[in-house]
C-alpha cells in the first residue's frame, strides 16, 4: 500500500467533510446556538452582569469562525480513524466498489460513534450545562463512545468466525445487548435541561442532521478517492 497516498486521501476526505460540516452548521445549527446564547446573556444581565453588545458581537463572529476551523480539525481526526478502519476492513465490507464499501463503513461508524452515544447523552445548546460537571460529562461521553465503538470493532473482527447462518442476527444482537447494558450502567447526564424544550429539541434535530451529513460526505469522498487512486494497488503497479 502506498503510505503517502493513503494518508493524503484520508486526511483530505476528513478535511472536506469537516469543512462542509462547519459551513453548513453556520446556517443550520448556529441560529439555535445564537438563540440559546441570547437566553444565557439575558439571565446574566438579570443577575447584574454588564455585557457590551458590540464587543460581544465581535466576539461571536470570532467564535463562529472557530466553528469552521473546528469542523476541519474534527473532520481530519475522525477521517483519520475512518481511513484506518477502512484500510484494514475494506475486504470484509459489503459492496463491489470502494465507494459502496466506504458508505457501508460510514453507516456503521455513524451508528456506533455518533447515534448511539447521542441517544444516551444528547447534545445540548448553550444555556444548558454546569461548568462544574464538565469533566464528569466529558468522561461519560468518552465512556459510551468507547464501549459502543470497541463493541462494534470487536464484532466486526469476529464476524468472519461466527456461524454463517446466524451471524447476521448474532452480531447486531450482541452489539445491542452490550450497548443496552452500558446505557443501564452509566449514570445520566447530571445537568438539568432548563432551556425551553422546543429550542433544545430543534437544536438536537439540527445537530443530528448535520452530523449525519458529515459521515455521509466522509464516506462518499474517501470511497471515491480510494476508487480513483487505489492506494492498496500501488505496490503491484510499481512492481510491474
Amino acid at each position, binding site marked *: *500500500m502506498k*503510505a*503517502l497516498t*493513503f*494518508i493524503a486521501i*484520508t*486526511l483530505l476526505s476528513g478535511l472536506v467533510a469537516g469543512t462542509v*460540516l*462547519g459551513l453548513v*452548521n453556520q446556517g443550520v*445549527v*448556529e441560529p439555535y*446556538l445564537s438563540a440559546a446564547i441570547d437566553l444565557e446573556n439575558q439571565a446574566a444581565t438579570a443577575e447584574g452582569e454588564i455585557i457590551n453588545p458590540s464587543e460581544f458581537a465581535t466576539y461571536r463572529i*470570532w*467564535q*463562529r469562525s*472557530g*466553528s469552521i*476551523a*473546528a*469542523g476541519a*480539525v*474534527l473532520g*481530519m*481526526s*475522525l477521517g*483519520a*480513524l475512518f*481511513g*484506518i478502519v477502512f*484500510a*484494514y476492513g475494506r475486504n470484509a465490507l459489503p459492496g463491489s466498489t470502494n465507494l459502496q464499501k466506504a458508505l457501508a463503513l460510514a453507516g456503521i461508524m455513524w451508528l456506533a460513534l*455518533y447515534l448511539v*452515544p*447521542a441517544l444516551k*447523552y*444528547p*447534545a*445540548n*445548546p*448553550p444555556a*444548558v*450545562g*454546569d*461548568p462544574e460537571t*464538565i*469533566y464528569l*460529562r*466529558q468522561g*461519560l*461521553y468518552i465512556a459510551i463512545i468507547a464501549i459502543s465503538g470497541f463493541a462494534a470493532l470487536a464484532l466486526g473482527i469476529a464476524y468472519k468466525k461466527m456461524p454463517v447462518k446466524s451471524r447476521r442476527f448474532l452480531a447486531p444482537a450482541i452489539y445491542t445487548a452490550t450497548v443496552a447494558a452500558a446505557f443501564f450502567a452509566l449514570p445520566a447526564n447530571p445537568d438539568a435541561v432548563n432551556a425551553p424544550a422546543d429550542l433544545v429539541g430543534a*437544536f438536537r434535530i439540527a*445537530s443530528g442532521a*448535520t*452530523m449525519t451529513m458529515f459521515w455521509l460526505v466522509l464516506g462518499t469522498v474517501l470511497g471515491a478517492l480510494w476508487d480513483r487512486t487505489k492506494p*492498496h*494497488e500501488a*505496490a*503491484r503497479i510499481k*512492481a510491474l
Partner: protein
Amino acid sequence: MSFTDQITRAAAGVPKIAVGVLLGILVLGVFVMGFDQGQLFSVAQGEQAYEDMWMHEFYHDMRHAAGFACH
C-alpha cells in the same frame, strides 16, 4: 519467485507508519477540538490558560453542534 513474494506482501499490508501518523492526528485533534479546557495552552501560559480556555472558546460552537460536552 521472490518477485511475486514481494508483490503479495507489499499489497496486503497496511503501512504501520501511516496508521501511527493517523492515530496521532486522531488523538490530538479530538482532544484539542472536543475536550481541551486550557490544558494545551497551560504549557506556555500556566494557570491563566484555565481561565482563558482559548481552545474551549474557539471550538465552542462546534462542541455544542457535534454533541461534545460543553460549558
